């Protein structure tokens, strides 16, 4: 048996909220009143959780993963697009956002599962090191990327986006997996160090540009392949069935591809040594 904390938004705020304190680990062993009195920065004014949310705590009879680590499940409901940094630096447990989230959701998280049923703003999972983010809507720019001034983006974990993603998705990432079922903006996996970026829909221009290592999987043909990408072979990469199965298990199935689908495989980007790879789904090509 575990505890479930439900926060329901009263009214959508008109100014940005700093919501990094709303984490499963911060709800642990707290009473309803203690949760209500937790501070929440609204603009430059300190307010409380109770000022913005109805708080309800229930005992979750089903238990499950959260029972193992003792963390409560945190569920937020409402239009949270004004709430920045939801799930930032989360280290475990389960957090569910029933609605859309603002910028920096799940940024720098190291564990647990963050599920967002709506859309998210920019910097989703930026520089995260572990855990899993599932977005049922679309994500903004810089998903899983590095913050300005940093050389490495996400270095672990998984980001699954059922909708579309913006520009510079996976830029400078060095480990982990990003799967976008829909379309993706320009410069996906720009300058990536390692890891995997999968794009199901139409990719923007220059996907994989300046990549050093890692894998970019394109299930829909890009407008152009950069001249610094070089064709290697056509076949089924050995790890593909495992990756597909792991996405399937994470409730991010890709129905149009098969475990032994054929890909055109390129080395990329030769401006950076050509140690990365672009896999272009054969039907796509």
């Amino acid at each position, binding site marked *: 048996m575990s505890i479930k904390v439900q926060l329901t938004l009263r009214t959508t705020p008109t100014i940005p909220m700093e919501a990094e304190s709303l984490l499963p680990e911060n709800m642990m062993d707290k009473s309803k009143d203690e949760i209500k009195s937790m501070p929440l920065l609204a603009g430059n004014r300190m307010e409380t959780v109770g000022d913005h949310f109805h708080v309800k705590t229930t005992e979750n009879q089903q238990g499950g993963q959260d029972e193992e680590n003792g963390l409560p499940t945190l569920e937020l409901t409402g239009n949270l697009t004004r709430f920045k940094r939801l799930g930032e630096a989360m280290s475990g447990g389960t957090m569910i956002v029933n609605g859309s989230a603002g910028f920096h959701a799940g940024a720098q998280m190291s564990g647990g599962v963050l599920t967002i049923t709506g859309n998210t703003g920019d910097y989703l999972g930026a520089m995260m090191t572990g855990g899993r983010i599932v977005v049922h809507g679309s994500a903004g720019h810089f998903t899983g990327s590095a913050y300005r001034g940093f050389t490495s983006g996400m270095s672990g974990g998984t980001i699954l986006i059922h909708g579309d993603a913006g520009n510079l998705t996976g830029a400078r990432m060095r480990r982990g997996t990003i799967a976008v079922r829909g379309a993706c903006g320009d410069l996906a996996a720009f300058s990536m160090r390692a890891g995997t970026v999968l794009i199901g829909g139409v990719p923007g221009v220059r996907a994989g540009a300046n990549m050093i290592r890692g894998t970019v999987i394109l299930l829909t043909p890009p407008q152009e392949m950069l001249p610094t990408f070089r064709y290697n072979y056509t076949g089924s990469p050995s790890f593909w069935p495992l990756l597909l199965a792991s996405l399937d298990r994470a409730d991010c199935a890709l129905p149009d591809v098969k*475990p032994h689908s054929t890909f055109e495989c390129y080395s990329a980007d030769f401006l950076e040594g050509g140690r990365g790879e672009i896999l272009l789904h054969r039907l796509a090509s």
Partner: protein
Amino acid sequence: MRVNNVEIVDTFAEAFPMSAARLTITARNEKWAMQAALAATGFATSVIGCGIEAGIEGVSRQTPDGRPGLDCLFFGMSRKDLEKHLLKRIGQAIMTAPTSACFDGGVLECPEEKRKTLKLGGKLRFFGDGYQASKIIAEERYWRIPVMEGDFLIQETFSVSEAVGGGNFMILAESADVALEAAEAAVESIRAIRGLILPFPGGIVRSGSQVGSRYAFLPASTNIAFCPTIRSRVPDTVLPPGTNSVLEIVIDGLTFELVAEATRVGIKAACIPGVLQITAGNYGGRLGKHHFHLRKLLG
């Protein structure tokens, strides 16, 4: 004690600790999974001459890449020894087989405190000569080694655990035909149990050995006390009158309980008409810490 009128000698089988790992070998189809598994587990009947004992445990219930696969068990005298031999066998027998891939099958039957890991893919990757690449999927690291056919996929680390090697029993029969029929029945019943292997050809040994020999260069020699053809020349023969053939079943298992269960069902199946006695090999308890008392198992 008698089972189906076959005498069960009041003795025990003496087995010893070994290190064990389970490899799941997959391929495009059953044929090539079997080819790779046969090559990898070939010439691995006894640590005395082969350095390692191995066998195909059975068809994998589920494989990481969803392809047909076989689970194979490998037993070595130490973790280091096992690693040395596995690196050779994976490199020479599995990686070389078309379409193959190699995954850790896990040793979940063994107690958690006895489980450790071997870095096999992490060492074999250097065959890629700098072109190898890793991929982390669901928290697990895999190595992709480029080969002429495509790429060879292998998990970085494999589970290994302390296990039990050398469980045994011997079937003393009135003829070679009866001994073989009884041994085959025993093998068939034991093969239904997962978590163990019978490392000898078809699961049966005709040339059991004794420790040492009259030759200084030979550490093991034929088990003269059980050889019917020289019975009259061997003063300490243990063969009862009427015995004309003896076959042995050797069992390596992941746990004591698995070997005990295999011994029990194997002996029961082997007690057919024409079998005179079932006994077991031991060294007075000096060699191994695992003792399987036959009468206790069947009691």
